[in-house]
């Protein structure tokens, strides 16, 4: 595995100390890390899922709106933050890998390091309710 940038390492270390669920992706959208509180929402330990390409994580959790309509990847906050490099926020439903559907709010923002290097994006999750 290539050396991660220090800003990404520090973000992961911060995330590992937070009780807020945090999801970190690299500049190409590849999942780099999610913390233990995120494991509770996503229904799987990070050590078991490992790193994952954007095409996989953006669909594997089956994001839907309140009516059950599938939300396409490009409307997910984290994908918006990655592609437009702007912050994004919305609520939606997802199905964890343990099969539980949860109503979450997600705030995502791009991660930009020293000298303007684009390093990926970070998403914070808030669980509203579960079905």
């Amino acid at each position, binding site marked *: *595995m290539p050396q991660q940038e220090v800003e990404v*390492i*520090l973000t992961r*270390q911060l995330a*590992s100390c937070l009780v807020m669920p945090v999801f970190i992706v690299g500049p190409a959208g590849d999942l780099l890390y999610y913390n233990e509180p995120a494991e509770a929402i996503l229904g799987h330990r990070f050590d078991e899922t490992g790193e994952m390409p954007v095409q996989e994580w953006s669909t594997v959790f089956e994001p839907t709106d309140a009516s059950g309509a599938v939300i396409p990847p490009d409307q997910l906050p984290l994908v918006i933050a990655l592609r437009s490099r702007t912050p994004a926020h919305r609520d939606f439903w997802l199905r964890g890998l343990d099969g539980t559907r949860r109503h979450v709010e997600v705030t995502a923002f791009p991660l930009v*390091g*020293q*000298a303007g290097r684009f390093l990926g994006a970070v998403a914070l999750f808030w669980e509203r309710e579960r079905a």
Partner: protein
Amino acid sequence: MRVKFWGTRGSLASPGPDTARYGGNTACVEVRGEDGAVLVLDAGTGIRLLGGGALGTPSRVDLLLTHLHMDHVQGLGFFGPLYVPGLEVHIWGPASTTLSLRARLGRYMSPPLFPVRLRDLPCRLTVHEVPCGTVHIGPFSVDSALVCHPGPTTGFRISTAQGTLAYLPDHEPALGVSGPMAGGGWTSGLALAEGADLLIHDAQYDDREYAARVGWGHSTVSRAVEFAALARVGRLALFHHDPGHDDAMLDTLVAEAVARQRPSFPVEAAGEGATIDVGR
């Protein structure tokens, strides 16, 4: 490649009889290539003696600054080559998110902190910002990367045909880590140090001191040894000694760490005036 330590102390110069053996000057390391080409690492107070004649008469001097904390730049204004008319001097170091390296250097090299302005120096000064990929300076191939320390801070990996030196004088690779440090790209600075013949690494604290200084940007002796093992280096020189650690304490810290961790490579506390030949 030959390495000579001109300053090994961290944070604050601490001269005196209790620090005479490992030295009281702050960070400065001379790196000589086989052909006499020279790199100077950091401009702590140790740079004054180096620049006062020990450099000889090079046609070019390259000064690599890991960061701009005072213990790494306090000697800059006393570095002789800066005052040699026409001498080619290159300073390499990190910019900040809002200021260029030249502007940051100018904050120190200007009144009221210093009487001589950067722009008034008679040498032919060029300022380069790092990290900037691999740079070739004479026989040296230099890589740099940002590492874990407050403010923009780089480490350097310097290679010649003879060997590789990794220089991470201010580095807290275990920040936020409660167990063993991770491999696989998730430990700061690891790629710089990977397989180096000599690693010069921050070892400011003992474990008890570190507990009260987490986030200050420095490593313990034990974490430095662990980091060196993870990077599979050939030799470790502990550096950036705490100003409160006298020679006897440094001896004890090294002996205890070696006895406890049993590294497969030599470990020593870097001492002012000592030299190490790197590689074959």
